[in-house]
Structures are given as structure tokens and as C-alpha cells.
């Protein structure tokens, strides 16, 4: 057991830190063009798709190197890459399951953010029970015709392409009748409508597909292999960014302490109130525990040990913590915590939620409700932990073939 970084990794971290201090944008990126430009700067710096194989434009970088970059980005509050889903999920899916032609056609443009991607998975009636999805893809001879509705599509409004799960066979068990496709969003049969969330923002969309076209060559893997492929893509979403997430939480904590020094109650600074101190101490302890746990996961990933089902523990842990964190923060800040605009300067903060979005306590608090729902709700994570980590018996389910 040795938690020190090697001299090489320390040198890499220092070089990375210098690069970001020199290159991080000093003004907020407002337009898509500005965000794309920042992405290309990151790409040219060698910080995009680091974990991808060299032959597809990556660096085969170890998990620790990737975590160091994510962490340094969080430290300077750098804007994220613009094509997160393309790089984190779609690219790896094509690398693992795609044809050579698909790799040639799509991968470079994903890395360079020439084409932006979204994930077309969830449906209004297929949330936790994703395998019950109803969107159909019908073989029309020279192409597939897609009909159905998707929801909770992150970045749908700016995407060019989507990674689609659709039903191709209704005669077999629901998990086996799903296939995975690459679909062009820019066509008459695809209608993308922004979805306003409780935060007031519109990161998500609804996507309606009516007689939409998917080329035969854009089927990923085999017909009916979609569920299996989706299981592997979901797992790319868990565990890897946990160190950077904790760094964002830590920055927010220092802002919170600053605010409790500025606020006064009953004639003394809020930070001298023992009840407030107890809450702050509890938050910081939990936050540090998240960091230690992140280091533990990272050390396993760095040795090439996949976290497997145990990544559900990480996801459950940070998302539930994030809710408690911002609940306590808003308890401490009182109504100031709910202010969305015009907060006094000494209370204002560059708090970003785990998503890297948002600049207010109010936004972070509201966003924290999303974490225990997306990418498999807490209840689904607990099922996975119970069945696949602890080996508890599966429950009797009405839809399970006996």
C-alpha cells in the first residue's frame, strides 16, 4: 500500500497543471463555436480520448494519467470537452463492437468534435426497466426504418449523431430483441425538442423518430446484441471521474466556508455557531472519504483491474453523498442558498455540481437530485450490488421467464 504518485506521474501532473494554468479560458464560453474551439485546444494538447487505443487516435493512457488530467481540469474549473458522450461512450463502443468501416468513418471525427454525439436509450416507459424499450427498427431491405420516442437525451440539441437502442425482434425475450445503431440526427424523420428540467436549464431533450432512416452499415454488432452492448457502454460511465468530482466538491466546500465567515447570525459569524461547525465538519469528513474511495478505485483501474459490479458502489456513494452535501449547504446558507441571481459578492460562488455545470448553490442543490436517477437509479445500483457483489438471490420478477 503506497498512495504516493511516482516521480513520472508527478512530473506529468505538474506539466498538466502548467498547461491548464496557461490555457484555461478566462471568460465564459457562450457559443457552440467557442466550446468547439476549446475542445480542439484540449485535443491538440493531448487531453482528449487519452484512454483510447493509439491506433484510433488515443494514447493508451493509464487510468491514473486520465484521472490526473480530469483532476487538474476540475482544479482550475476548466470547461469540459464538448463531446463527452462521444468520447466516453460512443467511441469505446465502436472500438469494441464496431466494424472497420465504422471505425474509419466515425472515430476521428468524434475525437476532434467534428461530429457531436448523444445516447438514445431511455424512453418515457423504459426508465429503470430499460430493456422494455419500444422504439422499433424495421428492416426495409436496404435500410432500417425507426419509429419511436426517446427521452433524457443529454446534449440532444447540439448532437449530429446518436447511439440508438431499438427493438428489432418482438418475438423473443425482451433483452434479446434489442439492437444497437448509429443514427444521423440531421434528417426529416428526427425531431429533437429541448426538455426543461427542475433546474430551469435544458441539458436534456426528447427525441421523436418518425420513419427515420438508419443505414444497414450503421448497425453496431449483431442484430439482437444491443442489450449486451448497452451493458458494456453503461459501465464506461462509472468510476473513472471520481477524483475530479471530489475536487469540484472540495472547491465548493471552501466557498461554503467563505460564506459562513461572511454571514452573521445573533451577532457573530455563522462559522462560530457550533451547529454550523458540526455540519461543516460532517460534510468535509464525507467528502474526504469520497476522495479516499476514489483513490482506491483508481488504483485498481490503473492496474488494469476492471471495477465490474463494484462500480455500482462508487456511483451509489457519490450520488447519495452529493444530495446530502448540498442539502446541508443550503441548510447552512438559509434562503441565500436558493438565490439564483444577484447573490451578494461575498456569498456568490463558482460552485459547480458534479456535472461541471452551474455556478450557484441553488443549481448544485437542484442538480444533485439527478445523480441518484441517471445511469441507473440508486435502487437499481442497490439491486446490482445485492445480486452481483453480495450474491443475494434475485427477486421474483413478473417479466422473468421461469
Amino acid at each position, binding site marked *: *500500500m*503506497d*498512495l*504516493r*504518485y*511516482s516521480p513520472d*506521474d508527478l512530473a506529468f501532473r505538474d506539466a498538466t497543471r502548467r498547461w491548464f494554468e496557461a490555457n484555461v479560458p478566462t471568460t465564459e464560453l457562450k457559443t457552440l463555436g467557442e466550446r468547439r474551439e476549446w475542445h480542439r485546444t484540449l485535443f491538440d494538447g493531448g487531453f482528449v480520448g487519452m484512454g483510447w487505443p493509439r491506433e484510433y487516435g488515443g494514447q493508451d493512457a493509464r487510468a*491514473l494519467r486520465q484521472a490526473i488530467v480530469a483532476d487538474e481540469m476540475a482544479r482550475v474549473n476548466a470547461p469540459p470537452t464538448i463531446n463527452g458522450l462521444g468520447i466516453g461512450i460512443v467511441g469505446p463502443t465502436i472500438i469494441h463492437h464496431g466494424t472497420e468501416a465504422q471505425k474509419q468513418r466515425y472515430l476521428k471525427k468524434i475525437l476532434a468534435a467534428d461530429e457531436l454525439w448523444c445516447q438514445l436509450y431511455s424512453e418515457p416507459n423504459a426508465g429503470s426497466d430499460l430493456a422494455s424499450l419500444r422504439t422499433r427498427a424495421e428492416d426495409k431491405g436496404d435500410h432500417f426504418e425507426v419509429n419511436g420516442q426517446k427521452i433524457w437525451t443529454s446534449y440532444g440539441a447540439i448532437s449530429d449523431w446518436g447511439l440508438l437502442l431499438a427493438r428489432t425482434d418482438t418475438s423473443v425475450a425482451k433483452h434479446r430483441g434489442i439492437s444497437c445503431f448509429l443514427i444521423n440526427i440531421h434528417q426529416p424523420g428526427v425531431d429533437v425538442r429541448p426538455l426543461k428540467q427542475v433546474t430551469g436549464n435544458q441539458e436534456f431533450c426528447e427525441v421523436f423518430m418518425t420513419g427515420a432512416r438508419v443505414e444497414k452499415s450503421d448497425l453496431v454488432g449483431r442484430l439482437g446484441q444491443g442489450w449486451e452492448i448497452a451493458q458494456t457502454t453503461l459501465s464506461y460511465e462509472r468510476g473513472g471521474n471520481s477524483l475530479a468530482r471530489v475536487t469540484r466538491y472540495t472547491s465548493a*466546500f*471552501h466557498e461554503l*466556508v467563505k460564506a459562513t465567515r461572511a454571514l452573521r447570525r445573533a451577532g457573530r459569524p455563522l462559522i462560530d455557531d457550533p451547529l454550523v*461547525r*458540526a455540519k*461543516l*465538519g*460532517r460534510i*468535509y*469528513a*464525507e467528502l*474526504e*472519504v*469520497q476522495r*479516499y*474511495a476514489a*483513490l*482506491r478505485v*483508481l*488504483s*485498481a483501474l*490503473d*492496474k488494469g483491474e476492471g471495477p465490474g459490479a463494484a462500480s455500482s*458502489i462508487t456511483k*451509489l*456513494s457519490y450520488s447519495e453523498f452529493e444530495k446530502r452535501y448540498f442539502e446541508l449547504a443550503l441548510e447552512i446558507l438559509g434562503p441565500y442558498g436558493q438565490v439564483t441571481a444577484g447573490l451578494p459578492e461575498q456569498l456568490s460562488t463558482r460552485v459547480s455540481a458534479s456535472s461541471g455545470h452551474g455556478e450557484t448553490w441553488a443549481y448544485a442543490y437542484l442538480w444533485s437530485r439527478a445523480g441518484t436517477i441517471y445511469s441507473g437509479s440508486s*435502487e437499481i*445500483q*442497490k*439491486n446490482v*450490488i*445485492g*445480486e452481483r*457483489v*453480495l*450474491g*443475494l*438471490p*434475485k*427477486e*421474483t420478477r413478473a417479466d422473468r421467464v421461469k
Partner: protein
Amino acid sequence: MDFAFSGDQQLLKNAARAFLDERCTSAVVRGLWDDPRGESEAMWKDMAQLGWLGLSLPEAYGGSGLGMVETAILLDEMGRAAYPGPYLPTVLAAHAVDSAGTTEQKNRWLPAIATGGARATTAFVDADLAWDPQSTATRAEKVGAGWRLSGAKQFVAWAHVADVLLVPARTPDGVTLFLVEPAAAGLTMKPVTAIDMGTRWAALTLDGVTVGADAILGAPGNGERLVWELLRRAAVAAAAEMLGAARRCLDMSVGYAKVREQFGQPIGSFQAIRHKCAEMLLSVENSHAAVYYAAWALDAKAEDAALAASVAKSYVSEAARHVCGEAIQVHGGIGFTWEYDLHLYMKRAKALEPMYGDADWHREQILRLVPA
């Protein structure tokens, strides 16, 4: 960067598990609960043979020169076994002697401790149960060449078997640690009976206890720094033992949920039980990360070592209590019986919860230590 145990550390863990599984069964633990002394001389000698008592002492004094991570590995396993005996207070006091003692004091106590010939403990808190050394109320007055100690110490672990007690007292130079032997005139001990019979406490009264100048550990007035250092180690040590107890309760719960049937199926198939077990595992794994990070930080003299110790103690105190309590809930009625072993581990975790600073106390320390 590697969070996993090294090969040697894993071997130590396996050896500890094997020894305690064989020699410290729940039947043995229950026997010692009923025993007036409360610990086994034979087991203590065997632990000395295995090198556990001198684990973190220098080789020159018969130790193995290992660190807090290895100590935590043993305590983790001891918590798992609800081991009854003075291991934690002895290695803590031994560390103090090693860290601050004179050559004579080290020669007198360290080889004896490493070979199983002596036990030791620390008497940190006075009547007000404040853990910060500034609150020390016990006084030491200079009398001739020596000192006279007066005061009362509470909840001193395993005092009745200790050959030497570490007693912080206030002198004109500031708080100072004294090595007091139990036969000293004016020292009386009153046993305290509590829920965990595998942890024995005593209340000490020091009524003008006279000791020589050589009873001062190190130099007069260095006690505050030393007590803080000891409290950090003690916090991590206690957290390690609570972690072991909690994991035992989790393992028993999962095992039981797989075989206990109600409504025609194993109760572990119900989400109400399965989700509880998943939450318990989350608490246990986070506690593991907290304990071993803090232990490593102490060994590595990391900048955040003090902070990590307080994080571990505050987090694990609550997590272990929660996990052990939920274990009883998962078991239902059988878990509430004296005959079933669950309460042995649940009570061990509970006994350590307020020791060496409770969760709230450590949260306050955290806030003082957070880099602003």
C-alpha cells in the same frame, strides 16, 4: 500509487484471520466475558510469538519495525473476532514510550511488551471526558526529586491488567505524561461494567500518587504534543477495530439473508433486505478506504495525516454503529438474542465509538485542520 495491500500485508491479514478464527472463537470470547480478568494469558503469549505485540516497535527493542497500516490490519481482524484484551491500549502506550521515552524507559518497557511480558494502557480523560490535552485536570506537584499526582481518570481501558499506565497531568511546565505503575501508593482502580464485556474499563483515583523524576515520559511540558500524536493513532486504531466488527456484522447478515426463508423465499431476495445489505456494504467499503488511507498517511507522515485520522474516526464511528444496528434488523428476532453472536461485534463497535474522541469531536478537529 497502490491502495491494495502489499503481499506481506496480505499474508499478515491472512495469518491474523487464521489465528483468530481458531483461537478466538465466539465461544472463547463468551468465556472471557464471564472471566474476572477478561483476557487470556495464553493468547497474549501466542500473539507475542507471532510478533504482533512488537509489530510497530523498532527491531532494537524486539519489534518488527512495521507501521500503522500493519497495526490497523491486525485491529481490523480483532474487531472481526470481538477479541477481548488489551492489544490496542498496549501498542498505543508502547508507541508513546518509543516515540518520547528515554533510553532507560525504552529498555525497561519495550522488550517486555514485545515479548508479552508486560501490558500497558493510557489514561487520557478526566472527569469531564474531554479528549483535548489542554483540558487535563489531573495535577502533578514537584515533591523533592519526584512528583505527586492528584486527580481522577475515567474509562481507562484494561487498567486492571496493565503493568504501566500513561497518565497525562498538569505541571508548572504544562501537560506532562507520567509512567505510573499500578502498585504505586495512592492509586485506586474501580472496575466499570459496561455492555461490551470484551472491553474492560476502570475509573482511577490518584490520591497523592508519588513517582520519581524518571516517571516523566521524555521531558516535562511535552505532553500536549504527545497526547495529540497518540490520539491520532488511537483514532485510526479504534476505527480499524470498528471496521472489522462492522464487516463481520455485514457478512453475517448477508449469509443469513441467503438462507432465511419467509413467504416461501430467501429474505435476501426482497429489496427491503437486499437494499439494506447494499447500503451496509457501501458503509463498510467507505470505512475501509477511510481507515487505511489514514493509517497510510500516518506512516508516510503525509501533510493531511491528522485530518485523515479525524475523518476516519468520525466517519467510521457512525458507519459501524449503523451497520451493526442494521445487522440486527436484517436478522430480526434471532439477532436480538444473547445466544446469537451478533451482539458481540455490535457492542465492540459501540464501545469504541466514544473513545479517543467521538464523531462530533473529530468533526471539530477537522474544521480546525482543513486547509482554508
